[in-house]
């Protein structure tokens, strides 16, 4: 996860000064492609699904760049787009699963088991499978806080949820995972 490219302020300045949309997009792509990839990947597990969502997110970023005035930071803006795209995917997936005969086969846990691009330890696989049992929004907040170590204020700006609710949600998520580990040990 590398941090490449110019700062957000310089990217906005490039966009404002020259109205060079392609250059600004290229800078955003360079800076955020990896970050957003891992952000989405932790939510949907499958690489192929992540690739689709990431492309859709950058397509939205490209289309919205003309209207972007820099009121919010690029960081918040691109994460919000990726979050929306991820939730859209998850909702569609849930609807499809509701009509699916074999629900077990299409579960995230099964995807994780059969994922060729997962090379973590057994403990990491267990942690991921417990995280996958959390509700979507709680899972997102847990990932942002635990793995990406984002500040509550940043998460609040991206998700539009109050800091208090985020703290409560994260606290519940941690307790649930602890309980799942404890039950596993008994």
């Amino acid at each position, binding site marked *: 996860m590398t941090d490449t490219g110019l700062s957000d302020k310089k990217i906005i300045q490039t966009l404002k000064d020259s109205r060079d949309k392609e250059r600004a997009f290229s800078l955003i792509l360079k800076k955020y492609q990896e970050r957003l990839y891992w952000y989405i990947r932790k939510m949907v597990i499958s690489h192929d699904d992540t690739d689709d969502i990431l492309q859709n997110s950058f397509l939205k970023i*490209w289309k919205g760049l003309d209207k972007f005035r820099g009121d919010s930071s690029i960081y918040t803006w691109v994460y919000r787009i990726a979050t929306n795209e991820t939730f859209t995917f998850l909702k569609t997936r849930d609807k499809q699963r509701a009509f699916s005969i074999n629900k077990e086969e299409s579960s995230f846990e099964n995807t994780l088991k059969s994922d060729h*691009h*997962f090379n*973590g330890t057994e*403990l*990491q696989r267990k942690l991921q499978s417990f995280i996958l049992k959390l509700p979507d929004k709680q899972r997102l907040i847990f990932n942002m806080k635990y*793995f990406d170590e984002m500040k509550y204020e940043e998460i609040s700006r991206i998700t539009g949820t109050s800091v208090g609710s985020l703290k409560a949600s994260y606290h519940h998520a941690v307790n649930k995972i*602890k309980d799942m*580990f404890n039950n596993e*040990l008994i």
Partner: protein
Amino acid sequence: MNKDKDIFDALNELKGNNPFDVPEGYFDSFPQRMKERIEREDENQRPGLIRIMKPWLGLAAGFLFIIALYITFGPDFSNTKTAEVNTEMFFDDGTLDQFFTEFNEYDLICYLTDCNKTDKQDKTNNINSEIEIDVTGLTQDDVEDLILF
């Protein structure tokens, strides 16, 4: 409890290690694939002739529809004009004054008994008889002169 603590210590140690990976060269090729995707999207959204003309055609169709509605259900000008003229003629002050000054009992009786018709017919007959010309004694030249006048 110690086991529990050990697990979370182990997890915290592993936190920095990403358990997922990506196909080789994925991030290097992503910008190019993204560029191609955007080009495809732009091509799909490039406006054709019909797409350019669509708003204008819609506007024209709207106008035609309004005109058709106006013609079908709008006011009939020819009738309105006649009605206006009739009303003006009838309610003209001069006409009314003249009508009332000329009106007398005899006219009313005539109107009710249809004597006007008989009078008119008599008058017409008189006029016709006045302009009757005896052509029996005229030569062809006299007839031609009459026609020319």
